[in-house]
């Protein structure tokens, strides 16, 4: 547990913070600013979006008695009797699948494979009490939605990733408000595969933290079958060795079907 101080420090995921009644914890993380206030009877959460082009490297967190001006969006929650003034912030992956793209369309030759590393925006879940009851959650960057499918009748609504998938792990910008996912695409077909976009099933991914505090998800591998109309998708059981020793911070939003393998229409994965 941390004592409340008035100095600025770096925020930590899944850490128990203890506030005194009347105190406000202010966070600046990703493209949002969040104020969490503890009062005698209630929790108050305010948030404000920052300009979409901002790309902050760190998570600033301050505890003080200052409240923001009244024009911020306010949510109020009745306190439970045994919350012990505790609050915790848990990361969560996007509730909808996310469409990722390479910087330019990428051709994977027949019987070839490639690994793309992608950073996806996280959601912040604000949890109160020792049990961690979720008060609310908010995305840490403004995300636009997109449609992925063969036509406008059949398809899936997804989030559009704000960053490109990279071939080199070092090129992926590491931020406390993004999680890194390695995506392996194997082309078993007899002709090259032009990769323009890829549907990453973010709700199926759990979040893990390494010693440096970076968040990683298990790898996802997609195998394009020789049959042209389908591809099989698999979520690996653990994170890649390059991430280092990791601990589970947040489970996946949705459970994967038994066997951990998902066969889907080609259009639903590659658009």
């Amino acid at each position, binding site marked *: 547990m941390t004592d409340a101080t008035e100095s600025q420090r770096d925020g930590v995921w899944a850490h128990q913070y203890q506030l005194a009644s009347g105190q406000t914890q202010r966070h600046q993380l990703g493209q949002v600013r969040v104020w969490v206030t503890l009062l005698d009877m209630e929790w108050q959460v305010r948030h404000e979006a920052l300009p979409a082009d901002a790309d902050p490297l760190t998570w600033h967190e301050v505890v003080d008695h200052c409240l923001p001006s009244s024009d911020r969006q306010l949510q109020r929650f009745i306190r439970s009797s045994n919350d012990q003034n505790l609050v915790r912030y848990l990361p969560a992956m996007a509730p909808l699948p996310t469409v990722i793209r390479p910087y330019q369309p990428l051709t994977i030759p027949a019987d070839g494979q490639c690994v793309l590393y992608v950073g996806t925006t996280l959601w912040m879940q604000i949890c109160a009490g020792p049990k961690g009851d979720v008060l609310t959650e908010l995305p840490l960057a403004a995300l*636009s939605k997109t449609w992925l499918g063969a036509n406008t009748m059949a398809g899936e609504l997804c989030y559009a990733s704000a960053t490109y998938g990279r071939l080199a792990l070092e090129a992926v910008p590491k931020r406390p408000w993004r999680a890194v996912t390695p995506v392996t695409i194997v082309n078993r077909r007899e002709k090259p595969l032009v990769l323009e976009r890829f549907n990453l099933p973010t709700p199926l991914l759990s979040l893990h933290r390494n010693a440096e505090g970076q968040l990683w998800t298990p790898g996802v591998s997609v195998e394009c079958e020789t049959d042209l109309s389908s591809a099989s998708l698999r979520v690996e059981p653990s994170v890649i060795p390059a991430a280092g020793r990791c601990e589970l911070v947040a489970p996946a939003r949705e459970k994967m079907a038994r066997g951990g393998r998902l066969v889907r229409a080609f259009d639903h994965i590659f658009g």
Partner: protein
Amino acid sequence: MFEGLNASLTGVLGGIAWGPWLAAGFLLLLGILLGSLAARTAGRLVESRISRHHQVMMRRLVFYLVFLIFAMAALREAGFSLQVVLGAAGILTVALGFASQTSASNIISGLFLVMEKPFEIGDVIEADATIGEVVAIDLLSVKLRTPDNLYVRIPNETLIKTRVINRSRFPIRRIDLVIGIAYAEDVERVKELLLSLAEANAVCLEEPKPFVLVTGFGASSVDLQFSFWVVKEEFLEGRGTMMIAVKKALDEAGIEIPFPHTSVYAGSHSAPFRIQLVDSEHPQDKD
């Protein structure tokens, strides 16, 4: 006289065997009770797995099935032979067919509507110049709740005959805005400006891509069509916020949205009109 009437009435009432009739009535009541119970249970069992529309249909089917079995038992109890009833039903149908053409037509249209399934409960449809959310699909009619909270009943026959637009069948919808700009403006620049607005607006989908078309040269403006896609639930918000954003952006960029202009032109050979400003208190002669 009264005594005579009373005696004959007692004779008639006493002559009816009440036992079977009461049993038949009891069976009918039991049928209604058990039917609704079974329907509710069936509905609850499948609640999480199927849509609201199918749930309502299933509940109704279970109810009618149970009720029909009890009604048949009741008829038998009352002393009717089922064959006779079915035979009489044939003759009755012809008679009823003539007497209640509209109702029969609505019932048959209702069956076709259920089979064809152009819409489900909860969909927003436009039919017979009415827009509303479907709240019930019944034997004779479909009930809609309009956006201004009116309850509208549309006969099934009308729905079979007229054009019905289902506004919520597909998850995404396109919004087409018609924007007129002055002839003096650079169309390419306006096009870029509009596309950047679509990119900045969180409600607009990235794909299918938004686009701008020049649709015509109007009387006083170059007409553009600005099209972008939104999730069906965000249609009104998307339209409203984008209209405001377009007006604001065009104003900021100094691009004129013209109103109709009329130029009076007397031909190339005629002399210009002579215009003279006059003082309102001392009017002078004017051409």
